[in-house]
């Protein structure tokens, strides 16, 4: 894969069926949820980021890590079937750079089916549009998050990761502490830059800090209700 960003759909099903001589499209299309109009995906640049977003996604599930499959999607492939990408909804992993890479595919069940048929046809000829990430690599990536500075991966997210890795007995989350942690959260420059530009106050440094503050408020407002609901925090 080249360095151009692409999208990944994470799913549980093993990938052997994608390379079958007579692929079962009815089955493979179930990696998407056709009852939903939005299909959750992440934007990544390479295989390393595939591991990381797959691991971060575990943090949204209340489950232990397990092998995960990845369907790689390029926007030109999506456009071919009239599928559009909505960039407005953030993810809910608690890892800021991953959550700002969250996207939704807007597609009908028929469009998804045509997309899967197209991707399967290419896989059956040897193209690498699907990948399996085994459990140990998901675990290794979760440990990487645990080793990040608190400003990039807040302590409560590390606590959830350690629970998932069976390295902590409980998650012991406190809403007030989570709120405090989000006051110092950092974002990659690629996220801050366009916001700072839009501030347009003429002073690059103050625009930058103002953008960071807006992002923190936006991210907190999005994340706190989700984590509260997910873990029944009050």
């Amino acid at each position, binding site marked *: 894969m080249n360095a151009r960003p692409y999208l990944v759909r994470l*799913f*549980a*099903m*093993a*990938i*052997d*069926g994608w*390379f*079958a001589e007579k692929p079962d499209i*009815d*089955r493979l299309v*179930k*990696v*998407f*949820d*056709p*009852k939903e109009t939005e299909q959750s995906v992440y934007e990544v640049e390479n295989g390393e980021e595939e591991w990381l977003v797959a691991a971060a996604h575990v943090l949204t599930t209340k*489950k232990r890590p*397990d*092998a995960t499959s990845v369907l790689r999607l390029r926007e030109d492939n999506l456009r071919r079937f009239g599928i559009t990408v909505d960039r407005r909804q953030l993810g809910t992993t608690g890892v800021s750079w991953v959550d700002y890479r969250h996207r939704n595919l807007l597609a009908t*069940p028929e469009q998804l089916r045509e997309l899967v048929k197209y991707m399967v046809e290419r896989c059956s000829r040897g193209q690498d549009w699907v990948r*399996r990430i*085994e*459990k140990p690599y998901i675990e290794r990536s979760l440990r990487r998050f645990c080793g990040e500075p608190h400003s990039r991966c807040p302590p409560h997210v590390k606590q959830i990761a350690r629970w998932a890795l069976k390295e902590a007995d409980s998650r012991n989350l406190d809403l007030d502490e989570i709120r405090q942690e989000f006051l110092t959260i950092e974002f990659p420059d690629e996220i801050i830059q366009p916001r700072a530009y839009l501030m347009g106050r003429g002073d690059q440094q103050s625009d930058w800090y103002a953008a960071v503050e807006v992002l923190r408020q936006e991210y907190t407002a999005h994340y706190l209700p989700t984590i509260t609901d997910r873990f029944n925090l009050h």
Partner: protein
Amino acid sequence: MSEATLQARLILNDALHRYRQPDGYEGDLVEAAWQLEEIGKDAWPALSELAFSCLPESEFFLGAIVRIEGVSPTDRRSVLLAAAKNPDVNVRSRLLELVEELSADLKCEVVAVLAACGNPDDAVTNRAQDARTVLEAQDRREDLP
């Protein structure tokens, strides 16, 4: 039959029903598998029946079959060997992934069934045959004085 066992069967049947609808989604089976794993050994009868049925959907429940605690080794062995004979490529592929979590003896047995000559001639059988070769080489090394 315990209430938890009944509940496990209900969860499983409901998830299978939803998954098999034209608008079914794998997430229904993933969620059911997680719930059965949380129920624990009371979910074993439902999991065991699923594995013996040789249905392709058992792919999603193999993790629970391998990991649920309190199941007798004999019961787990018979269920896993049945799963290893499942004609579905994804089921066998998933099982081959999970052999790393099995005891050494059971791992060898499961890999041997996955690698058997009568199995479909596909990538999983090939990978299992490679794995069997590696395990046999390890055995030979351990037997050396």
